[in-house]
């Protein structure tokens, strides 16, 4: 079943704030082998000009992947997760995420298309502080492979 094209162009209300913890950043940095001090040590991070430990560039996906469930888990969209593969991913940063941030996500479906029996959905997530300061914009394109 194709995806419901009426989702294209829609935006959703801001998600509840995600509180970025120092230990979560350390855990994520360790998982990708990023051992540099600014990901782990608040003193080193402050010396490098950050308010607290700083997150690696792809860390925001931890927040946006959960936020995107707002769209993708809606049965009306018609997404069959067992046939989904990740197509594209992009981040545009205003500033890096740091421990202590309380971040909200506003999700939009930029595009829904079908080609060669496959369906494509591109989501855009504007990640900002509770106060409205922009932090990062995240695009994610998922491919729902055609049924065999």
């Amino acid at each position, binding site marked *: 079943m194709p995806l419901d094209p009426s989702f294209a162009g829609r935006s959703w209300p801001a998600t509840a704030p995600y509180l970025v913890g120092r230990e*979560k950043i350390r*855990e*994520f940095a*360790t*998982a*990708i*082998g*990023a051992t*540099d001090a*600014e*990901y782990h040590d608040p003193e080193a991070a402050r010396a*490098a*000009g*950050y308010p607290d430990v*700083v*997150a*690696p*560039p*792809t860390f925001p*996906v*931890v927040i946006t*992947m*959960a936020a995107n469930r707002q769209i993708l888990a809606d049965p009306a969209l018609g997404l069959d997760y*067992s046939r989904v*593969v*990740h*197509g*594209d*991913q*992009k*981040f*545009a*940063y205003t*500033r*890096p995420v740091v421990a202590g941030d309380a971040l909200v996500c506003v999700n939009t479906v930029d595009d829904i298309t079908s080609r060669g029996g496959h369906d494509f959905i591109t989501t855009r997530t504007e990640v900002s502080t509770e106060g409205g300061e922009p932090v990062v914009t995240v*695009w994610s394109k998922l491919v729902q492979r055609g049924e065999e």
Partner: protein
Amino acid sequence: MAEELPTQTFRVTRADLIRYAGASGDFNTIHWSDRIAKNVGLPGVIAHGMYTMALAGRAVSIWAGAPDAVVEYGVRFTRPVPVPDTDEGTEVVVSGVIKEVTDDGLTKIELTATCHGEKVLSLARATIRKR
């Protein structure tokens, strides 16, 4: 005059995928169950695309000198990275070429990430601002 950036090699094992699943919250079964991965037509467990992107992102951060130097970073996932259940796992090799330095001080990099000599990312690009 395209300048080449030093190649970075990352070893990827099953343990790394388990650790990444926990850290990222992405528990998709194809990243830890051979049985389910094979059921959906994969050779076996594959790495999270976002894990491969994170490794290439590490290379970008190393070249840039600081995590906040990265202004934009995007990739397309073209091929899966199979990770066998062995001590050695597999390797992802990331290289980069500086394509352009703009008048306003941005450096545009084109990245190549390979596994067993095959490209696993395409349209892999990062823009960095040197501090």
